[in-house]
Structure formats: C-alpha cells, structure tokens
C-alpha cells in the first residue's frame, strides 16, 4: 500500500536539473511538470479508494481507541459520551494487579512458546529438507494443525484435557494413579495451553525455515565438506548463520501473534482458572465488552499494541546489530 502511495507522488517533487545551473529551457520543463502533476493527481485518484478504506477500518479505529483510552466514557441512549479527558484509565491499569499478571503471563507465554516453536520448527525443517519424494505429503500433513481454525482446535484440546472424560486426563491417571485437573489448576492449565499452541504453530515455523533452507547456496556446503567440517559444525557454522534472516521473519510473526493471543485461551480455559491464563487480549475483551469499562479497556488495548510494537522493534534492532557485526567480522 505504501508503494501505491509513494510512486505517483515521487515524480511530482522538483528534480535537480541535469544541465546543472544552466538556465531553464522554458516551455518544455513546464510541460513536463504539468504532465507529472497530472500523473500524480491520477495516482492519488487511483489510490484514493484504498486509502479511504484503510483510513476507515485501520487508522480511524486506532486513533479512536487511543482517544477513548484517555477519556471518561459513558454509554448513553444516544451513543458514547465522553465526559472528560483523563489519565485515570492508565492509573487504573497501573494499579490493577490483574493487569500486571496478564502482562507477565503474556510475556512468559510468548517467550516460551516462540522459543520452543523455533527449535522444533527448525528441527522439523532440517528433516524435511532431506526427504525425497515424500516431502510434499509430509508438508501437507504438517499443515493440518496450522490450517485448522483455532476455535476448533482449542475445543478439541479442551475435550482431551477435560477432567472427567478427557483422553489426556485418562492417560495421566493410568500412569500416575491420580486424576489430574489439567485445566482446573493454574500451572497445568498454562502448560496445557502452551502445548496446544506449540502443536498448532510449529508447522508454520517449519515451513518458513524450510523455504529458507532450500534456497541456501550449495557451494558453501561443498567448501565446508572440503575443509573437513562434520555435520554438527556445518549446522552451527554454515546453515544457521545463513538462516538467520528467515528465522527472524518467523520469530517476528510469532511474537506478533503470540502476544495478541485471544482465541486459544478464550475457548480452552476462558482465561481461567481464576485469571491464570488471562492474556492481555482476553483481559481487554473482558474489561471492554463484558464489564463495559470502555476507557480502561481501551487503555489495555493501547498498551498492548505499544508493547508488542516495542518488542518487535527491539528484536529487529538486536537482530540487525548481530548481522552487522558478523558481516564486519
């Protein structure tokens, strides 16, 4: 979308005259400027519909939510009424132990699941790269969890974890002799939710890493072999450094998704037991739409957005610094 915006406008800017300091040759330049201006206008005209849509469905809601987060909001028979501008919503947030818990839980959940998924996904991709004829089939199989709607897969996991008829409960009972309450106690519920997420999104990481793997140049491997590097060294010194940018893309996507996780806890645990699996997104939903606490709810949404944007920027910066250092070396 940004290209659509910048391309037509770029030529409209005055260009340095190639003749350098020579007097303008009047009408020709004027005509060209006029043509460029007309083209720019046409460009704006063509992009206007999509700009309007983006403004309407993305920019406006974000700005409105930001305004709400600084407002004392009341629902009246005539719609939302903003009584006053205030920092109160953020104060309420910062003095709420539930919010700190949700923040801690979301960060913990993101770090653990993304880390595990990257390791497992990379391992799966390495195996798949070696596969010959069966690779297509394996990839299709692997994509099943990823392609399943989370609401459905979360419900399936909920059945398996169920404390009276769940197959996992039964299996644990058969091994340990006591009936576990998987979704009824905080630590097992958090673990159970992570397992469901890792099961679902590891394939996503695997596919992206596999795409990176097959594009790696062969000659580097040949050189490594000539130099007498074993498989272990080859992986750490040759494969992994070249895969960095691919893995970075996968991690970035996963952080964005994991930090905003909503559907999985909503269906699997409802954020419970208590608030044990209440992510920031679930908390925002409950505060906004169940309790109709519009201002504080908007503050939850805004801070979540800012935090995830900050986390991604930080990650990208760290990643770039790392790559830069290696290139110099």
């Amino acid at each position, binding site marked *: 979308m940004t290209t659509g915006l910048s391309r037509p406008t770029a030529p409209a800017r005055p260009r340095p005259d190639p003749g350098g300091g020579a007097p303008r040759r009047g009408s020709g330049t004027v005509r060209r400027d006029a043509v460029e201006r007309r083209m720019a206008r046409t460009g704006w005209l063509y992009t206007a519909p999509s700009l309007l849509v983006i403004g309407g469905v993305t920019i406006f809601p974000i700005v409105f939510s930001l305004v709400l987060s600084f407002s004392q909001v009341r629902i009246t*028979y005539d719609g939302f009424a903003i009584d006053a501008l205030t920092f109160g919503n953020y104060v*309420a947030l910062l003095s709420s132990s539930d919010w700190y818990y949700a923040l801690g839980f979301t960060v913990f959940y993101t770090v653990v699941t993304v880390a595990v998924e990257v390791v497992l996904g990379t391992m799966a991709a390495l195996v798949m790269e070696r596969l010959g004829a069966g690779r297509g089939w394996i990839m299709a199989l692997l994509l099943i969890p990823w392609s399943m709607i989370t609401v459905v897969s979360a419900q399936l996991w909920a059945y398996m974890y169920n404390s*009276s008829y769940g197959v996992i409960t039964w299996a644990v009972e058969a091994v340990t002799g006591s*009936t576990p309450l998987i979704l*009824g106690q905080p630590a097992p519920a958090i673990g159970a939710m992570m397992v469901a997420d890792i099961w679902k999104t590891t394939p996503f990481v695997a596919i992206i890493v596999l795409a990176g793997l097959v594009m790696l140049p062969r000659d580097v491997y040949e050189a490594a072999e000539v130099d007498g590097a074993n498989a272990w060294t080859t992986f750490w010194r040759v494969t992994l450094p070249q895969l960095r940018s691919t893995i970075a893309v996968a991690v970035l996507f996963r952080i964005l998704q994991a930090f905003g996780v909503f559907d999985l806890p909503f269906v699997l645990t409802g954020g419970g*037991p*208590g608030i044990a699996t209440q992510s920031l997104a679930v908390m925002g939903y409950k505060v906004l739409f*169940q309790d*109709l606490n519009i201002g504080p709810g908007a503050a939850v949404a805004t801070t979540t957005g800012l935090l995830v944007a900050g986390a991604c920027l930080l990650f990208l910066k760290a990643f770039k610094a790392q790559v830069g250092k290696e290139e110099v070396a």
Partner: protein
Amino acid sequence: MRLSRRSLLAGGAALAAASLAGCAREAGVADPMAGRSTELPEEPVTIDWLSQELSDNEGNDLRRTLIEAFHKRHPTITVRLVQVPPTTDVRRTTLTTQIASGAVTPDVYLGDCAWPAQFAHHSLAMPLGMLSDGADFWSGYPDPIVTAVSYEDRAWAFPMYLDIAFLYYRADLLHKHGLEPPATWEELHRTAGRLTEAGDVRYGFVWQGASSETLTCNFAEMLADAGGALMDERAEEVLVDSDAGRRALEFMSGLVADGVSPAAVGTFAEEQAMTAFSGGQSAFLRNWSYAWGAANAPGGSAVAGKVGATLRPTFEGSGRPRLSTLGGWHNFVNPHTRHLGAALAFARWVAQEEAQTIMATTSPYTPTLSSVLADPEVVGQDNPTFGLSADAEFVVRPTQSPHYPQISKAIYTTANPLIVDGGGDAGAVLSEMAEGMRRARDGEAL
C-alpha cells in the same frame, strides 16, 4: 385455561400508564421513551426476538408456539427469531456491543436475571416505568423477581421464567439402602459416603465449583444456608467475611477433601455436573430446574426414571432450609427499537397469563407469574419441580450493583482455588474476597 381478556387488558393498561408516568419523572436524564408512542401499531410490523432455544416437553420449539399464540392475538405483529451465541457471557457481549453502538434490533431480547442493573446503568435496556406506578402489575410476581428486574426503583425487564436450584438424588439407591433424601448438608455428607463406600456410585455429590458465575451462585446459597449473605440488600455493604462465610467455604472445600465430591467439581459448570449425574456417576446433584428434564431424558440419561428432586437442604442448626439462588430469564426491550409499541406488547405478553400458562403446561420452564405457578393444573404435572417451586426461598445475588460482574469475579476467583485444592486458609480467602468485592463495588476493579 383461566384466561380473561379483561385481566390482560387491565395489566397492559396499568403498565402503559406506568411507563408514561415513569417518563415524567427523573428530569435531566435523557429518557429513550420520551415523546415516543407506546401504542400498538396499526400497520403490520415485524420485530426481532433474541432468545436461546427453549424446547417444550415434546422436543418442539416453545418459542415458536408462543410467537404463534401472540400473532393470533395481535395479527399486525410478526415476531422473528434471532440466532444467539451459545453461552450466556458471549450472548451478553454480543448484546452490549450491538446495542451500545445503536443497533435497532433485536427489538426484544431474553436476558439473565443478573443483567438489569448493568444494562440499565449502561443504557442498554428500555426503562419500563416506575415500579410504584405499576404496583398492580408487579404484585403478580414474587418480590425477589421484582427486585431482580428493577434498578433504581424502575423495572427493566418483563419476567419470563424462573430458575430454581434443586437437590437431585438417586431415588433408587436411597431406596435400596433404606435412606431418606437428606434434610441437612451433614446428613448428605454421611449418606453420600455410604453410597460411595457401597460401590453404587463413583461420586457422592456433584455441583458447580468452576471459576465462573456458577460458583458465585453455589457459594451464595451455601452462605445463606449458614445464615450469612454476600452483601446487604442494596448491594452496598460487603458482609461475606463472617463465621457463616467460613462455615460455607470450609464445608465446600471439605466435600472435596473428604472425597464426597471429586476435585473436578472445581472445573464443573452446569453441563459437566449434569453429565456426571445423568451418566450415573454421582448420587446427588445440585442444579437448576432444567435438570429434571435432562436427568429423565430417555436415551440421553442413564438414570432416567431413577431420579428424585427436592429443595436444597441446609446446615444443622440453621433455620433456613429450601433456599435457592434466584435465577431466571426475562425479556428486555432494546431502547433503539423502531417498533416500541410492538416490542413492549410482546415482551409484556410473554410475562402474562396466557403465555405463562402455555409455557407451564407444555414445557419444563417454571413460570414467574404467581397465579400460574399456583394453578393446580400446573402443579399437578409429572414434573415435581413445579410443585416444589412455590415453597422455595430465594437468595438474591448483589445484582443491584451495576458492577455486579466484577463483584462476582472477586468471589469466584478467590473461592475456586480453595475448592480445587480441597482446603486451605478459609479466613484469608474470605478477607481477600471481601477486599476484592469492595473494590469492585466502588468501580475500582478492572
């Protein structure tokens, strides 16, 4: 059927008068009723009714039966059903977002009896007039129901059906051991122990201890059995941190610790407890009115025909038996409706004699109108819950507070771990619960 057209008209007229009088009061607050006609439409109109599925005794849709009967009486009004999300919380979210953003439909929606204060506070329901002005109309319903549908002395919903909590028991097993249904919780504890020891059932007693509204209902009842209360009647003072609170909590966690209830009750909502009981796994079940039908459903229940129902027992030495949390569903009117007259007429009609009688005689839903509930024809049916309902005493949750959802959350999130763990420091839990409830009441809880 003892239905007189005159009583219908009288009720309607009283309410219309009440509505109009209600508008005149409380100047300063924009009243959605002001300047709008509450007359019945002369031109044909169609209104949307959002209601969960309600099956009658034959498995047919009770809602359609009611709609047809209403259409016969008011041929100009067609009522159309709206599909609803499955759970109460999701349904509430759908309604709040839809109505807060000014949607004109659904015109009428069936809502939980815990909603009126919150919905009134946030302008999501049409005020139906001052209670005092409609005194004749409202005197037809039990006081706790009138309290539940009111907020700041106005009515916000027309009562449709009641939900009462009963103790369901395996009559066959009690008979086999020569036992009676327990009159106290202590007796239930002993009886359940005997039945599980004899190997007749896996669990003694299943109820709802999941970290959700349902635990608040279960705890409120136990607390009332022990002589306590969550808050005062106006939902202002927090009373939960008391000896009664301790007795109730310790008994509930003790049920798990002593093996009378499985630790899984800490994850049970109505559905899971129902499944355990109708699957023949438990001797006793605490559940709402609908459970009678579910437990006796041929094909759907392993214990069909072997079940008895009674009002809930109480604690030894406590003088308050037969208590039940007040539950039920009532029809609200969307303040943005384009067909106010028709919407009011339908919501009101469902609360009155004709509809209430149809419901009571053909379906398992307990009518709210006292005269219908006392009707011998209704009481005499196969379903014993109707006959027992008239004797029930109600425990009203502090739903009078517009912050009730947060208050309830403070209750169930603190009580749940104690039940899952089968014990702990009940005193500490109660003071944490009370603190959370006070913060919620003051609107400080997120």
